[in-house]
């Protein structure tokens, strides 16, 4: 026990002496998650949450144009721009602006669109009326070709963005057509046998859609937003960067001969290693909770959502310890295998970036191709993130995270065994 405590004290003193290193160890991860949460905020928002300026060229000048404008504004998602400097936007002007990227979307309502929709609605109503034995009286146009509302996107727009906007506009046009059709049906039926005062409500949505929670949680809906993904994800990434100071520490001890002296002293070197690991695991856990505090207190001040924690704090602590243990063991392995701090720094840093990229830290694993998802699930960082998501998003407890924390601990033990074998081989 004395060896273990003495080693913890020694590591603490060494860390205190390196004031710059100490500051970087805690400050850089905080800066990292703040920056990452902010820059990844927009891609994480659903497109429905964002507001776009939408250039509208109304060649119809009819009810459809008015309906579309009012409807778009009513959704709150679009700000309709149909004039500039007091003059209506022309089609060519709108296309140029979108092409330059000044605007993301432009819709052009063709001439006669209102007439086409009304005519189509009238045709349907007349047809229904005829089948019901009611005289068909609503006027129908002679043109049978359907018109299209043209949508233009900024060429730099992403496919997912286009698809989401397309779907929103399509839904909206369908809604306008349905409204007009229902209005015509009501009008026709009212003519037949209903008093003028009858409102005759037609309710189409008999069956609705409502999102429900899957878990036993009493907590209300937690959305996987930028903060909810980025704070835990980049916290895990930053914790793994403990590899650099640990590997450096191991190599320095080997180079300056202090490792040799420790090995010349009776008693197990494992107790010294355990003290070193315990110290760095504690550092990782402190880093984790500091970063969580940033998600709770700092990010909301910057206009981002507040990090919502799960209900099992014991489970979160267990995950933080497991991640810290794996990161520390990885540092010891890197520090044992490589001979110079430069080698360890380069390998350590790049390998963490790779493990984090494939492990779903940068972008969620779910949106990667299947073969990358398979590879990604082998990354210890993905186990850590899965466990955190289980606690924070799925409100699970200690029992449910056992699988992932178990994998992390086993991985740590395997890495320590490899480090032990490498060191033994080196000594012999």
């Amino acid at each position: 026990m004395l060896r273990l405590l003495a080693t913890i004290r020694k590591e603490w003193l060494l860390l205190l002496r390196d004031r710059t290193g100490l500051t970087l160890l805690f400050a850089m991860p905080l800066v990292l998650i703040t920056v990452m949460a902010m820059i990844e905020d927009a891609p994480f928002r659903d497109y429905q949450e964002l507001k776009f300026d939408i250039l509208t060229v109304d060649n119809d000048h009819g009810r459809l144009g008015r309906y579309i404008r009012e409807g778009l504004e009513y959704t709150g998602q679009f700000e309709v721009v149909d004039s500039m400097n007091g003059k209506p936007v022309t089609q060519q002007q709108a296309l140029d602006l979108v092409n330059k990227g000044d605007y993301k979307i432009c819709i052009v309502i063709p001439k006669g669109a209102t007439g086409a929709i009304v005519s189509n609605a009238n045709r349907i109503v007349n047809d229904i009326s005829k089948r019901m034995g009611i005289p068909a009286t609503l006027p129908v146009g002679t043109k049978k070709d359907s018109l299209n509302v043209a949508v233009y996107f900024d060429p730099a727009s992403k496919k997912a963005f286009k698809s989401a906007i397309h779907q929103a506009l399509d839904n909206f046009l369908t809604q306008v057509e349905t409204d007009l059709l229902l209005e015509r049906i009501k009008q026709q039926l009212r003519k037949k046998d209903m008093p003028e005062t009858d409102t005759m409500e037609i309710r189409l949505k008999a069956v609705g859609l409502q999102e429900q929670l899957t878990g036993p949680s009493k907590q209300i809906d937690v959305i996987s937003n930028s903060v909810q993904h980025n704070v835990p994800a980049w916290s895990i990434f930053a914790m793994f960067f403990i590899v650099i100071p640990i590997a450096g520490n191991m190599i320095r001890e080997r180079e300056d001969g202090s490792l040799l002296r420790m090995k010349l002293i009776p008693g197990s070197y494992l107790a010294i290693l355990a003290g070193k690991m315990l110290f760095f695991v504690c550092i990782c856990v402190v880093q984790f909770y500091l970063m969580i505090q940033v998600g709770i207190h700092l990010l909301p001040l910057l206009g981002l959502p507040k990090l919502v924690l799960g209900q099992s704090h014991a489970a979160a602590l267990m995950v933080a310890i497991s991640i810290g243990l794996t990161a520390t063991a990885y540092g010891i392995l890197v520090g044992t295998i490589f001979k110079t701090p430069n080698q360890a720094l380069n390998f350590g840093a790049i390998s963490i970036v790779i493990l984090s990229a494939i492990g779903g830290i940068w972008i969620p694993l779910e949106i990667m191709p299947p073969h990358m998802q398979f590879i990604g699930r082998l990354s210890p960082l993905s186990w850590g993130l899965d466990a955190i998501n289980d606690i924070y998003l799925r409100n699970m407890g200690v029992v449910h995270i056992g699988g992932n924390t178990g994998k992390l601990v086993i991985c740590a033990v395997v890495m320590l065994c490899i480090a032990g074998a490498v060191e033994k081989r080196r000594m012999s």
Partner: protein
Amino acid sequence: MTSISVQDLHKTYKGALEPSLSGLSFSFPKGAMVGLLGPNGAGKTTTISILCGLVKADGGQARIFDLPQDAANREAIKRITGIVPQQIALFPHLTAVENLTYFGNLYGMKGKPLRSRIDEYLQMFGLEKAGNKEVHRFSGGMKRRTNIIAAILHQPQLLILDEPTAGVDVQSRSMILQFLREYNNQGVSIVYTSHLLEEAQTICREVVIIDEGKVVVQGETAALIARHPECRNLEDVFLHYTGHAVRD
């Protein structure tokens, strides 16, 4: 009783073309002060590493105070042996007291007894005012002296020093040599390696000269010099046995 006894030690490192040790044998009685001398690559460091248990010999046997150096006795041998490596095996960013406290703790010492011993040794080596200074701020001589204190904190019966005075000034060297004489007078066996043969001649009653992994000569320092009338000192004896060819 012998303090060190090596019999027919053999060692060839993996990938090496030549063996480091090829049948090395020597022994010293308890309480001896012996110089283990040899040119570069003679096998001194390998011998010390085998004696410490850091390296396993391919053949032969090493004994410390009659205990065979094997897995069963390794811990017991570490307890009675102090090693002063050629490197300054200290944490540069800890103070001398912090370094010595840490290594003392690893030896199982703690509290007031440890602190008193540290203070005693710091004073003995003229470092009492520098105890709370970080080691990387020390001069070469101060580092060497602290390096020695770290090896004797647990009061070993055998002290092995690998070039303990390399790169230090005359004053520090004199202090170190004086300490070694006094320490040996207390009954502690000392094995000392150095390329400074004048120094070895001054403090070692007995020397072993090894070359190419074998003992070329062993005996009392004064007797060896006297045996060769053409040799004025230990350096001449050394060159007589190992030749003038430069070693890499």
